[in-house]
C-alpha cells in the first residue's frame, strides 16, 4: 500500500523582486548574490496579498489536474512556518475557502514540511483512514526576514505549491532524521512581538542562520538521506531518474552533485524563487513533472530547521 501524486499546482505572489531591486536599498549586487547563492529573483507578498490566496490558487490547480472535487479529500495538510494568523490555522481557513469539511492539520516542519506531510499522508492511506489527501505548502519567509540583514534577506521568497495524493499500490520509501539538541540554534526564528511583562524571551521575530554550519548540515544530510534510500531499495543513483532537492542555495545542490554526479538528475529553480522553505520541493515538482514518464523513480529530499532532514523515494 502506498501513494501516488495525481495533481500539482502553484500559487505565486505577483511581485517579483530582483537582485538589482535589493541593491537599491542595501549594500549588495546581482553578481554578489547570484555567485554565492544562484538566486536571481524571488516572489514577495505585497500589498494586501495573503498566503491564503496563494494557497487557494495552488490547491484549486492541483485539484483540477487530479480531477478531484474538494469533498473527495479526506485530509488537508498545510505545511507552513506561519500562516496569515497564529490562529486559526491556515489549513482551517483554506478548507473554508475550498468548501471542505475534513480533517485539517497545519504542519510546522520548516523546509521539510512537504516531506513530513507526505509521510503522514502515507500513514493515513496505510491505516485505511483516507483515499485522497491534499497537501498545500505555503510560506511567507518575507514576514520572518530581517530586511536590513543582507546575509539572509537575499535568500528567501514567498510561494505556495500543492499536491493531491491518492492511495495506490506504489509504496514509497522514506528516510527521516531529526538531530535533536545538536545544532538547532544554527537555523531558527523567534516568535516575534509579545508584551508579556513576566518573561524576557529573545523575541525580535527574525530568522537567524549560520550559513557555514547549515551548509555542512545540508550537504551531509542530503548525502545520508539519499544513501539510506538507495541502500534500503538496493538501488544506485544510476537507477534514479530525478532528485528533487529543497531549493535553498545552488551551492548546496552543487555539493550534492559533487558527491553523486549526474547534474542532469538534479533540476533547480531557486534562481527564480529563492528559498521558499517547504514550498520549494512541491513547486519544483510542479514545474518539472512534465519531463517525467510513468515508472520513473524519483527522490524528493529536504533539510532545514530542527535540524531535520527527510527524503522519499517513489515511483511516478
Amino acid at each position, binding site marked *: 500500500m502506498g501513494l501516488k501524486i495525481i495533481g500539482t499546482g502553484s500559487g505565486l505572489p505577483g511581485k517579483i523582486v530582483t537582485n538589482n531591486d535589493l541593491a537599491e536599498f542595501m549594500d549588495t549586487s546581482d553578481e554578489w548574490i547570484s555567485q*554565492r547563492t544562484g538566486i536571481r529573483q524571488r516572489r514577495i507578498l505585497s500589498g494586501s496579498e495573503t498566503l491564503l490566496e496563494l494557497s487557494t490558487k495552488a490547491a484549486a490547480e492541483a485539484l483540477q489536474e487530479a480531477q478531484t472535487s474538494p469533498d473527495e479529500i479526506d485530509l488537508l495538510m498545510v505545511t507552513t512556518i506561519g500562516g496569515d494568523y497564529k490562529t486559526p490555522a491556515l489549513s482551517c481557513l483554506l478548507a473554508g475557502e475550498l468548501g471542505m469539511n475534513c480533517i485539517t492539520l497545519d504542519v510546522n516542519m520548516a523546509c521539510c514540511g512537504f516531506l513530513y506531510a507526505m509521510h503522514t499522508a502515507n500513514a493515513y492511506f496505510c491505516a485505511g483512514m483516507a483515499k485522497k489527501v491534499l497537501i498545500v505548502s505555503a510560506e511567507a519567509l518575507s514576514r520572518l526576514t530581517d530586511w536590513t540583514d543582507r546575509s539572509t534577506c537575499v535568500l528567501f521568497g514567498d510561494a505556495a505549491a500543492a499536491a493531491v495524493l491518492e492511495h495506490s499500490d506504489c509504496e514509497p520509501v522514506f528516510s527521516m532524521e531529526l538531530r535533536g539538541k545538536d545544532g538547532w540554534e544554527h537555523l531558527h526564528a523567534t516568535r516575534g512581538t509579545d508584551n508579556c511583562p513576566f518573561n524576557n524571551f529573545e523575541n525580535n521575530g527574525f530568522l537567524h542562520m549560520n*550559513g*557555514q*554550519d547549515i*551548509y*555542512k548540515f545540508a*550537504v*551531509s544530510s542530503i548525502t545520508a538521506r539519499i544513501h539510506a534510500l538507495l541502500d534500503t531499495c538496493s538501488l544506485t543513483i544510476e537507477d534514479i531518474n530525478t532528485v528533487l532537492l529543497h531549493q535553498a*542555495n545552488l*551551492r548546496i545542490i552543487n*555539493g550534492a552533485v*559533487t558527491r553523486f554526479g549526474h547534474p542532469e538528475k538534479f533540476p533547480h529553480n531557486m534562481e527564480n524563487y529563492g528559498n521558499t522553505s517547504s514550498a520549494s520541493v512541491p513547486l519544483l515538482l510542479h514545474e518539472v513533472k512534465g519531463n517525467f514518464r510513468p515508472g520513473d523513480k524519483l527522490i524528493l529530499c529536504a533539510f532545514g530547521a530542527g535540524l531535520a532532514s527527510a527524503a522519499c523515494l517513489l515511483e511516478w
Partner: protein
Amino acid sequence: MKEKVLDIIAAYKGVDAADIATDKPFNDIGLDSLDVAELVMQIEDACGVEIDITPELNCIDKLVEYIESK
C-alpha cells in the same frame, strides 16, 4: 598534511597548488564562506578529522595547524 590540504583546495579551485598563498585569508584567495564549508567537509573526509569552523581558522596555515593539533 599541508600538501594533502593544498591538493584538495587546488583541485577545488582548478589551480596549481604552488600558486595558492597559504598565509592569506580565505577571502583574499577567492574562497567565500560556503567554499570554506565545502572544503572543510572534503578535508574532514580525506583526513578523518572533524573540523569546527571558527573565525580564527581564516587561512590554510591555521587550518593545517588546527588539523595537526587534533
